[in-house]
């Protein structure tokens, strides 16, 4: 049905896949840092744990509940953070946020990798918060 073609822009296959099979869905025993974050208005919840060594995220634990967008975005984020330099990831967050709320130039989109799957959320501004919940939790985790 063609209603779904519009929906498809938001709920791409990769998103539904991450929603149904979230990656790094586990709890870490001795995380370097951890944070819980939620959006009380829609009830999305996310728990993020990281092990960090020499500025690199070496292990990640994610759990939560909420809509497909918030949970898939968290799972995609986990993959992007893992084995990466924290500063690079913060830069990635900025670009990702720009993608959804501003106007990220075409040539910077490539760097986003799989995260680009969430681009369709932009068409549903009310859902942008869902996509950013885990990322802003990560940002808080690092900054605080």
């Amino acid at each position: 049905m063609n209603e779904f073609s519009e929906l498809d822009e938001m709920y791409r296959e990769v998103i539904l896949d991450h929603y149904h099979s979230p990656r790094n869905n586990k709890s870490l025993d001795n995380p370097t840092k951890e944070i819980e974050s939620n959006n009380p208005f829609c009830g999305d919840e996310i728990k993020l744990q990281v092990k960090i060594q020499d500025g690199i995220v070496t292990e990640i634990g994610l759990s939560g509940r909420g809509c497909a967008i918030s949970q898939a975005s968290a799972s995609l984020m986990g993959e992007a953070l893992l084995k990466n330099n924290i500063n690079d990831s913060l830069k990635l967050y900025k670009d990702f946020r720009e993608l959804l709320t501003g106007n990220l130039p075409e040539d910077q989109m490539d760097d986003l990798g799989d995260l680009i799957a969430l681009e369709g959320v932009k068409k549903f501004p009310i859902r942008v918060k869902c996509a950013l919940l885990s990322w802003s939790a990560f940002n808080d985790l690092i900054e605080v």
Partner: protein
Amino acid sequence: MNNNLDPMNIKNDFPIFKRTINGYPLIYLDNAATTQKPQSVIDSLSSYYRNSNANVFRGVHTLSIEATDLYDLARQKVQKFINAKNFQEIIYTRNTSESINLVAYSWALKNLTKGDKMFISPFEHHSNLVPWQQICRKVGAQLLYIPLDDSGAIDCDKFSSLIDQNTKLISVTHMSNVLGEISPIKDLTELAHRFGALIMIDGAQSVPHMPIDVQEMNCDFLAFSSHKMLGPTGIGVLYAKKEILEIMDPFLFGGDMISEVTYEDAKWNDLPYKFEAGTPNIADAIATGTAIDYLQNIGMEKVFDHEINLVSYALEKFSSLENIDILGSQDPSLKGGVISFNHKFIHPHDLGTALDRFGIAIRTGHHCAMPLIRSFGLVAASRASFYIYNDNEDIDKLIDSISDIEDYFINE
């Protein structure tokens, strides 16, 4: 057939149903949040501003006299609609929330003291919960919850063993905006009065949907919002018994609520004006009268019957969807036209977004009743709520669309 209302005909009176949403005709199932407006209500606003707009009271020019007459007439319509004994018992506010705050500030702050108790139900909208948390904390009174029975309904028996002479106020929703369940107002009122307590009814979800007679109910306060009963946003009502209003202090101070002012002091105006400071929401008060005309033209019994029919039909239809849990009672005889539900696998926001692609408007989230939603182990739920322009076909489309969306989200 003649005895039922005809939603198709009614829909024609509501211009918004001429628009499409994502190419689909609008199916509006978010009536507990706010209702749509008939052309007559919209016309009432334009007509006022085109022909009679002026500030009310004391003006000797024609426009001001006309505006004042229209404004007073609207209040009489409200009075008759809920069968209040006196014109002076109808206070205009912005909405149900402000009506409740008015009672909290002007009555409760003065009449509740340390050691007193007040009760509310576990079903309350934040508007009938947060003000009481604040007031009780401020005066040192206890805010307690009316107990429920095993089925999750208000348990008057248990409650009668908790209420005592220290109980000064009960404030309870007439109909839950989440579960649709109707509270046993009669029993609660009797209990309250037996112990010398006053009772306030949050009528936000009842006044728009059923016949209301405050004299028969014998409640002390009743709050409701015009925007939930075909009227405009920005205007609500507090009904209160005259003898109580008379001894209450004013809430907001300023123009129109005084009779005499010196540099040192002020005397209050008569009821109902004592509680209405500043230029009132004249146009929306008048349009509220027009909304009431529309509803009374149908008849509130018919409105209520229609919604009971819809909710019965919807409950039956929903039972065909195996992944759906209905929140609260499934007995249509205990409910008004509100159904909240949870899909085992699809988050309410995803469901709401997807239904919107089909032109179907439902509400998703905590419905301003977070603690209640949490008591079901949820953080959000979906809600379909009905009104006079909804029909069985709307429900069919809702159910069919949910099935399609299930296929999309679950099987793909």
